[in-house]
């Protein structure tokens, strides 16, 4: 049978953000897949270097629209470590509550997207409707539906009062009921299940060797969760389970996410009930002493790593972000191979990709040729490129 190469993306209805995939098809079957990154590079790491730490928090928060709190918390944790600032316990609890609310909204959003990718729009509409509950909660507590702006160096910016705590618990009860319904839907709806089960296989060993993170790796039976492995914020104060299963396919990833919702509800209930009294922030210096730190965080999509180096000024000297999607992209090829073209959207969706988070410049080593271009070389290249088209920029 003839092989054809189908370009999916950078613009394609299945992709919510631009990224390019080239699928080699034999009939409907995918023989090979190519992932091309770099359509979303925004230079955020570089931009951080010309902003002070306070400004950086808001910029970092905007790396991702869904897990904005993850990025800002990871960054703030790194800065706090360098500056030796200890946030008060209440601040840590509030950070954790927001983090879990974010996980809820992200996983419910994912469930809807997954439904849409397999053509189950009713599930999409229902889960996004239920997601509004948690969005309203976030707007109530933080003052915004997304990009909450809750973090500052040394604590959080807003407190949770008893009225808000009551509302959170009420909404959590409602969401628990809905989530239990979604579990039944995922397990029992036959058309949904046949589309999810056995699709996008990622065996345990492959998941380990390709360094997958988050629900993707947990669905392959590996209990890897930064909240347990390297507790931050208030995660060492609460009891919760790391959800794993052995399905190693899209169905498994769906179940991991839905059961994680139930764990999140438990965490929030425990945190709200034991919310310690006290200040919500301590004073932090404007100028951060020289130093460097790595901070890890379990974002809804997986492990998020930030590296920050400071030089004693208000500005960071270097910020490096490793978003979870970048770690998971390597396994996409394995998951797509041998599958059907029809499975492509759901396999991609199952890692819950956030391409704009992931698009950073990475230097690949080992193939012998150095593909790293410095500023001067890039500038000369662009001057030559325009010269060929009749525009001379060399004197400007």
């Amino acid at each position, binding site marked *: 049978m003839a092989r*054809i190469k189908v370009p999916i993306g950078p613009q394609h209805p299945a992709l919510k953000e631009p990224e390019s995939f080239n699928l080699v098809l034999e009939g*409907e079957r995918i023989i090979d897949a190519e992932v091309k990154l770099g359509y979303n590079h925004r230079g955020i790491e570089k931009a951080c270097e010309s902003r002070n730490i306070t400004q950086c928090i808001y910029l970092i928060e905007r790396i991702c629209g869904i897990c904005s709190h993850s990025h800002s918390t990871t960054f703030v944790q790194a800065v706090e470590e360098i500056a030796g600032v200890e946030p008060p316990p209440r601040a840590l609890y509030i950070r954790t509550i927001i983090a879990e609310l974010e996980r809820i909204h992200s996983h419910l959003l994912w469930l809807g997207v997954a439904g849409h990718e397999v053509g189950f729009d*009713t599930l999409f*509409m229902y889960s996004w409707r239920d997601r509004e509950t948690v969005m309203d909660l976030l707007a109530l507590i933080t003052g915004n539906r997304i990009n909450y702006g809750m973090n500052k160096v040394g604590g959080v910016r807003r407190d949770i009062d008893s009225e808000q705590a009551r509302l959170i618990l009420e909404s959590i009860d409602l969401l628990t009921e809905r989530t239990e319904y979604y579990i039944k839907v995922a397990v029992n*709806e036959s058309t949904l299940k046949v589309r999810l089960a056995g699709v996008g296989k990622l065996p345990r060993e492959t998941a380990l060797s390709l360094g997958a993170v988050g629900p993707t790796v947990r669905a392959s039976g590996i209990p890897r969760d930064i909240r347990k492995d390297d507790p931050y914020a208030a995660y060492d104060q609460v009891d919760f389970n790391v959800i794993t299963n052995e399905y190693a396919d899209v169905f498994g990833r769906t179940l991991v996410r839905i059961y994680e919702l139930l764990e999140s509800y438990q965490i929030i209930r425990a945190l709200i009930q034991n919310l310690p009294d006290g200040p919500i922030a301590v004073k932090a210096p404007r100028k951060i002493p020289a130093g460097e730190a790595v901070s890890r965080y379990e974002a809804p999509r997986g492990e998020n790593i930030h590296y920050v180096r400071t030089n004693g000024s208000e500005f960071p000297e270097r910020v490096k972000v490793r978003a979870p999607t970048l770690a998971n992209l390597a396994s996409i090829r394995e998951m797509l191979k041998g599958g059907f*073209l*029809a499975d492509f959207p759901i396999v991609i969706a199952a890692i819950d990709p956030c391409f704009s988070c992931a698009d950073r410049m990475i230097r690949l080593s080992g193939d012998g040729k150095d593909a790293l271009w410095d500023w001067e070389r890039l500038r000369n290249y662009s001057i030559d490129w325009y010269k060929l088209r009749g525009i001379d920029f060399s004197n400007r």
Partner: protein
Amino acid sequence: MDLVLKLSYMLIFPGFLFLVLYAMACEWVDRKLYARFQNRVGPPWFQPLADFIKLLAKEEIVPEAADKIMFRALPVVALAAVLTSFLYIPVWDITAFHSFPADLVVVFYLLTIPTLAFFLAGWHSTSLFAALGSLRTLTQLFAYEVPLLIVLMGPALLAGTWTISEITAFFVANPGLLAVNLLGFCVALVAIQGKLERVPFDIAEAETEIVGGPFTEFSGRLLAITRLVVDIEMVVLAALISAVFLGGSFGLGPVWGFLLFLLKTLLIVGLLALFKSVVARLRLEQMMKFCWKYLAPVALFQLFINILVKAFLV
């Protein structure tokens, strides 16, 4: 005078004009119900008409590499086919505008023409996504067409005729026998979901996979026509199912018969919308498996029941 009447039947009521408007109304009912099933508000009643007018006003782009004549002609061919097929289906009366022996088969094949036209249209637009969609359209055709034809044979067998009008007349005379074909009615509903390329069988135009399927390159007037064809096809199929499985208008006379026609077609449209909202899209090979492993045997079983009923009861 006879000619004027015939022309008005063909062009105004219940022919072209009525059919177009009613198809849009049915599209609205379908979309509104789908929205309400999903807890949304849904479009206002004039939305399908507004969409149609808007598309008519849009620029029409024909791909450079496409076969221009085929690309423009095929949607019109599909439209002509579905409009023609409606003339053989009874509306308010037991007999249709035009009826001849074995017209059920003709209607069935006229309703296959749009699928073939869309396949050719997608194929001729030379886009990769359209080509993939076309192939899927054609592959799907083999899955749902057989069960649909088998279950349509059931009532025909029972009535002992291949003529739609005579089948309707038979059921009006023996309304009790309608219950025999209940299973067949359900199979037909599932199968026409495939014919209309709706969830769970919208594999050919699965937007998250292959963009717009065969219609990827269509725009403006041509897209408006293709969408209209699908709408009209839904009405014609609903009318066909109603005539064959539900006894059509039951010979209640023009006014009541017509109202019953509306009621039955809308009921079928509603059932289709309900079905659409509780399932996910299947994969091509899953659809094949479903249609051949479950739908076709059930259809055969229905046929078997009909044979038994015919042999012992009628």
